[in-house]
């Protein structure tokens, strides 16, 4: 069984965001790069799937510049069998990343594809569905449980719905499953794993290798902006009833937190 895990290397959550002079992105020189936290759950689910089925190979794939190989090595240190790097210096949009990942999944004869529900830098939460449609595989996101049938032809998953409800979804395989926190507890990359991963051979593709040499992103980013400065606090006026009404209005319309 070929278990593919799509991962992304992102800036650490504690990163202080500084916008570049041309406002087309954020400064990356001092950034601490980590595996997208949601993709860690995906790697763990891939590893657990192999352990439960007692067969299969787990391959991790990522798209990005050379520094992203570190993310692949960490996944291998956790126990992944193979690592595949789609090497590119440019920042690709959802469309082009999905195309590249789909091509790799085809080459790897994917039987099941795991990924995190979203990347915490771009927050699109769309790659899973885009890849699935390109491959004509069914998909589900916000998955918190995955059980594969003994004959490996289908999976029964639990999806977090609105208001805390859970949907039970049955899907044929192959499928793309985007996982959420709570599905498992990712294991540590063990020390012996880290040592072994250093020597692991990484399979590398360029976009040209994947037949995508002539492709470009279909969305263009610009004008990055920081949110407006936190205004000084305001004390609400009127009697308790008026204050309560006004507070709710402000929280919804101004602060937009409810």
């Amino acid at each position, binding site marked *: 069984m070929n278990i593919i895990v799509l991962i992304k290397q992102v800036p650490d959550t504690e990163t202080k965001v500084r916008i570049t002079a041309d406002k087309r992105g954020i400064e990356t020189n001092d950034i601490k790069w980590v595996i997208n936290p949601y993709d860690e759950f995906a790697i763990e689910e891939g590893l657990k799937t192999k352990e439960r089925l007692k067969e299969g190979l787990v391959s991790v794939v990522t798209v990005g510049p050379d520094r992203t190989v570190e993310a692949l090595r960490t996944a291998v240190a956790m126990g992944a069998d193979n690592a595949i790097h789609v090497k590119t210096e440019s920042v690709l949009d959802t469309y082009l990343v999905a195309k590249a990942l789909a091509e790799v999944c085809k080459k790897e004869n994917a039987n099941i594809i795991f990924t995190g529900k979203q990347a915490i830098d771009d927050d699109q939460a769309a790659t899973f*569905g885009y890849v*699935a449609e*390109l491959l004509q595989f069914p998909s589900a996101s916000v998955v918190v449980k995955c059980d594969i049938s003994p004959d490996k032809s289908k999976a029964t998953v639990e999806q977090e719905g609105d208001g805390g409800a859970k949907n039970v979804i049955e*899907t044929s395989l192959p499928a793309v499953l985007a996982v959420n926190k709570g599905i498992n507890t990712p294991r540590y990359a063990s020390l012996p794993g880290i040592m072994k991963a250093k020597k692991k051979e990484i399979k590398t593709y360029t976009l040209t290798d994947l037949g995508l040499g002539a492709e470009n992103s*279909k969305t263009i980013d610009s004008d990055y902006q920081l*949110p407006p400065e936190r205004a000084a606090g305001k004390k609400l006026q009127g009697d308790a009833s008026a204050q309560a009404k006004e507070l709710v209005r402000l929280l919804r319309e101004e602060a937009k*937190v409810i």
Partner: protein
Amino acid sequence: MGNVFVIAEQKDGHVKRVSLEILSELTRQGVAATAVVPGFGDLSKVTDNLVNHGAAKVVVLEHEALNQYNTEAYTNALHQYLSSQNPSVIVTGATSHGKDFLPRLAAKFTTGIAVDCTSFQLSGDKVSVRRPVYAGKCSKQVEFSGAPAIFSVRPNVLAVQTGSKSGSVEKVAANPGTVKAKIVSTVASQIKKVELTEADIIISGGRSLKSADNFKILADCAATVGAAVGASRAAVDAGYAPHDMQVGQTGKTVSPKLYIACGISGAIQHLAGMRTSKVIVAINKDPEAPIFQKADYGIVGDLFEVVPLLTEELKKLKSQS
């Protein structure tokens, strides 16, 4: 601006508010749009509502299989219809359904996609959107090359405006295509205690609550918005709340979207535990309480009076969504 389509979401004859928000914004921008609604059965209340909020035309994609939401059925039906309409723009709400099918729809069109936008601008032939990134630490403008431009809009950001318009309503037989994944059952949420460190909204009480029983006032308020209840160290030390509810230096550190501090003075130890909350509200009888320095919104008043009123207002708000 070519053909603009809003994929409207409905459930049991009730239109999701975000669909109306999008139509309202299009009206404000002087853009005529067609609302597309996958569904089955009598949807007249839905179509009326959409027309009233600015849809120049409403197209119901009708099929029994579209009665309940299904990823592939919706994607296939929408694509089958929309691909015959030469769309320039396809937009929907960034709800759990929107986030589920829109990427697949974009893949069918092999176009770019922008998710969870907080604003959009359609002028002339140009489409541009703005969306938050890096967990909201900044935002960026996104433009599209090629058509259609496909994006989703964050709920509760754009204002809704009614205006009785006239718009036509049409029913089209839809084709849900092959479906390989199906929801087989749904388990309603059990009232689970929301974990403090994971909660989006927290309501905390201080020593002024005066008893453990009084914390129920906060619990009732919390229940309206699925919030967690926290407590200051003073309240915990006095026995009004258990230690696992303590927010602060020696309790839990939290970072919710909204933190409502009731009867909490705002000593540095408590602040250390909730300082990074996105929005802080303080309700306190003492106008000099240090917490007002940190709060975005403050109510000088008796929490026993204010909080129940707040609960009522929140209940009202919830029923409107």
